[in-house]
């Protein structure tokens, strides 16, 4: 046993020697790929949906070309992004859809994350049917009539019920509870990722088949597959507090930016710029559509937008 303990102490000791003695700060560790050419750098987190890619692409382009920073991006879901933000692994999260628990923990209690102001885009989650179907059956747009159409939304996966398609596990959703509490004859089928969900919606649309899906705006796909929202019981403050009993629509959420607290204080021009970054839903959609539909690289899409919207972004740099 003694031998093993010595070996362990030796191992830990040599580890410490290798990295310089003393405590290692877990809150200050950048990516090994950062600053490769010795430039100032900023790390931005990207979420898996295209809107978030659009924010980051434009911010990255301006940081690199106007302010002379090197930008690293890391793709990570929102909740782990909060964690990464508090550790300084990423400097900013540009589009958060509301995570009160994380806000309490990191912004209010630990003070490792600072709010970065609004993004200027308002997000909304809802249930949607394709517009070609809503035109044929106008009464589908009220949730009370959903059961009447359940058999039209049936798929092999939903069995004898209608299919309500949900997306990525990283999304905020109460759909299972909603279906139960509103006594709907539907089965929630989780597509498992946004990519799978979009692919399926495109296939349905190609054949003009009816479908009912959890979806959100702003989103570029509306331009390709026009969709109409199904009205759910009206949202009132706090009606979604108890996840078991929730029976109302989703709120409209002004999307927020968050910065690592250290970076917000000492991040110089980059931090100041990211705090001022604020654009509209149309702006974001314009860039998103270029990325997702025209298959432009995020960089090219950002360049195209930047070239034609000088007055918008000049304000962010002052």
């Amino acid at each position, binding site marked *: 046993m003694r031998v093993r303990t010595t070996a362990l102490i030796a191992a*830990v000791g040599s*580890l*410490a020697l*290798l*990295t310089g003695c003393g*405590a*290692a*700060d*877990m*809150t200050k*560790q950048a*990516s*090994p*790929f950062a600053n*490769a050419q010795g430039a100032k750098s900023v790390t931005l987190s*990207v979420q898996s949906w*295209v809107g978030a*890619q659009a924010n980051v692409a434009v911010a990255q382009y301006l940081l690199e070309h106007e302010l002379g920073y090197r930008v*690293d991006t*890391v*793709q*990570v*879901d929102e*909740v*782990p*992004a*909060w*964690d*990464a933000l508090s*550790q300084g*692994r*990423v400097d900013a999260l540009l589009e958060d859809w509301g995570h009160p628990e994380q806000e309490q*923990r990191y912004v209010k209690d*630990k003070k*490792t994350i600072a709010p970065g102001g609004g993004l200027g885009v308002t997000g909304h989650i809802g249930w949607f049917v394709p517009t070609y179907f809503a035109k044929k059956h106008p009464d589908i747009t009220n949730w009370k009539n959903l059961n009447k159409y359940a058999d039209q939304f049936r*798929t*092999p*996966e939903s*069995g004898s019920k209608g299919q309500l*398609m949900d997306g990525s*596990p*990283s999304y905020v959703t109460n759909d299972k509870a909603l279906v139960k509490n509103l006594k709907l004859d539907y089965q929630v*089928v*989780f*597509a*498992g*990722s*946004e*990519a*799978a*969900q*979009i*692919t*399926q919606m495109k*296939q349905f649309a*190609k*054949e003009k088949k009816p479908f009912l899906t959890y979806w959100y705006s702003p989103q570029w796909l509306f331009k390709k597959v026009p969709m109409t929202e199904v009205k759910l019981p009206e949202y009132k403050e706090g009606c979604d507090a108890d996840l078991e009993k929730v029976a109302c629509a989703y709120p409209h959420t002004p999307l927020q930016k968050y910065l690592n607290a250290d970076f917000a204080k000492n991040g110089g021009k980059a931090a100041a710029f990211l705090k001022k970054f604020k654009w509209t839903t149309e702006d974001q959609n314009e860039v998103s559509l270029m*990325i*997702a539909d025209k*298959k432009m690289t995020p960089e090219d899409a950002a360049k195209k937008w930047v070239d034609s919207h000088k007055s918008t972004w000049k304000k962010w740099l002052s």
Partner: protein
Amino acid sequence: MATITASPPRVGLPALLKSPAVRKLLLLALAAAILVPLANARWASGSWPTALTVDFSEPLAKASDWIIDNRDSHPLFLYFFGHVSNVVVIAVRAVYLGLLAVGWAGVTALGALVAWRVAGVRLALGTGVAFLACGLLGMWVPTMQTLALMVVAVLASVLVGAVLGLAAGLSDRMDRVLRPVLDTMQVLPAFAYLLPVVLVFGIGVPAAVLATVIYAAPPMARLTSLGLRGADKEVLEAVESLGSTARQRLLTARIPLARKELLLGLNQTIMMALSMAVIAAVIGAGGLGDRVYQALASVDVGAALAAGIPIVLLAVVLDRVTGAAGERLGAEPEPRQGLGWLYALVAFAAVAVAGRLVGRLDWPESWVVGIAEPVNRAVDWMTAHLYSGVPVIGGTADWAGHFTTWVLDPMRDGLQGLPWWSVLLIVAALAWVIGTWRTALTAVLAMAAIGALGVWKPSLDTLSQVLAAVAVTLVLGFATGIAAARSDRLERLLRPVLDVFQTMPQFVYLIPVVALFGVGRAPAVAAAIVYALPAVVRITTQGLRQVDPAALESSSSLGATSWQQLRQVQLPLARPALLLAVNQGLVLVLAVVVIGGLVGGGALGYDVVFGLAQGDLATGLVAGGAIVCLGLMLDRVTQPTERRAKKGA
């Protein structure tokens, strides 16, 4: 299950009862007749009784809170994990900067020259071409990032694996202790431990490297231990008689004798590490994996493929080169080997310096070939034409629908409809008939653990998908394997195809799979089949080809047709290989359950992804644990003989 400890009575039995399988089943039936009414009276329910579940969500949530609250201040993090993390970052950075400094020409030359020295001219050319292809696809920098990460991860895995393997090879007690640990490390879906690793190390490279080591170290450990144990007894005795100490024996005889296994271990470790490159991107590892993952977000198959091809190329090159090096080990060493290495070094230095002088370190942007657009067009065309409305056979969407309704639904409903105790009985019966009472006990306990974790229903859902996928994989795999074993040309044609399917990151084909089969369990099954098929084909082909040619000749001299030969000689003689194929099929299908979760497979796979995406340690770990238990149970039910030391094909 107390049943399994009793020994069968040895009184005069009718002939039928002499068969051990029948005796075991009768005994089990007797035990069931006593225990089932008792269990049923106490916990009368079809599905697993809630009285018998343990809720882990609270302690797990507390553990995750504790880590987050103490990560910046507790000595454990300041003086241990923090340093581990720093060492990883420094090492990866050093390799990355080194690769960038050498430039693209230098790296290509280095790769080709090393391949030339250890594996010959042909592979050297292949290696060079592969590196150039990475550049042509516009993926030079991500490829270097992935390479840097892989170098460090593989070194760490080999180190950890060798130490564990040494311990297991030299001590029987350590071997017994380590074996289940290694099993768990390999079967636990990577997604399940990404989350705890991320909690401790945070998003990024250190967590990615650690997660890779967990996954890639076991084959090294297993093969090291196997090599040490397999050393020729006579040689060892001879060395011992010379009066050497234990350490001398280890260093001069046992380790050199085991070098073939060690090299095979290295080869397997490299393959496993590369297969983690994309999954590690989910926690911010960067590199090629990140490109694949980001392309997925904008539903861009072409871009994902452009980043996926370099991964395939790296994997194939590394596999062939280490494989060839292993074959050369046995051969006589070439004369003047040192001189060859010297030439290689000089050539590399010349290229690297030339690259520097010309100032061409970065891959020139004008040399990039865009493949994304044509690929996307091809995929769109294919899915548009196959999805539905194909005359006579129907579209892929129709097949998927029928498969779901006619196969998956009845299987799932059937399994979920069975009373819980009968599932345990079936598992016990299968495992006991094929193996010993020990394997039966392990299988039953694994299944019971799933119930106790409170995920009985989703686990049976996953089980039904796994069984369906394995069944299809085996039918296709055996058929292809038999065909390939009988035709050299077909085998040669298949080899690169199998390589691609085996090493292509699964994220690349997620979208085509959904586009063809729609969202749901059918595409999840399809993705699993694509992933598991190559291993099954390979093992089948190899098994059939290894059948003693003498047996074949004697049967053909007796006038057997080739069909009779196959059925009555080859297949029975290749039985161990076929069983291994079944086992590997199961392991591999189970390994992509999580990927299935990303295309609508639901059940355990979705829960694991959910846990990671929502930072919910309890959901993710419990689902991951249930997948491990399923794997353990299926392994025990299908593996009659001694477990093979070599896992992962």
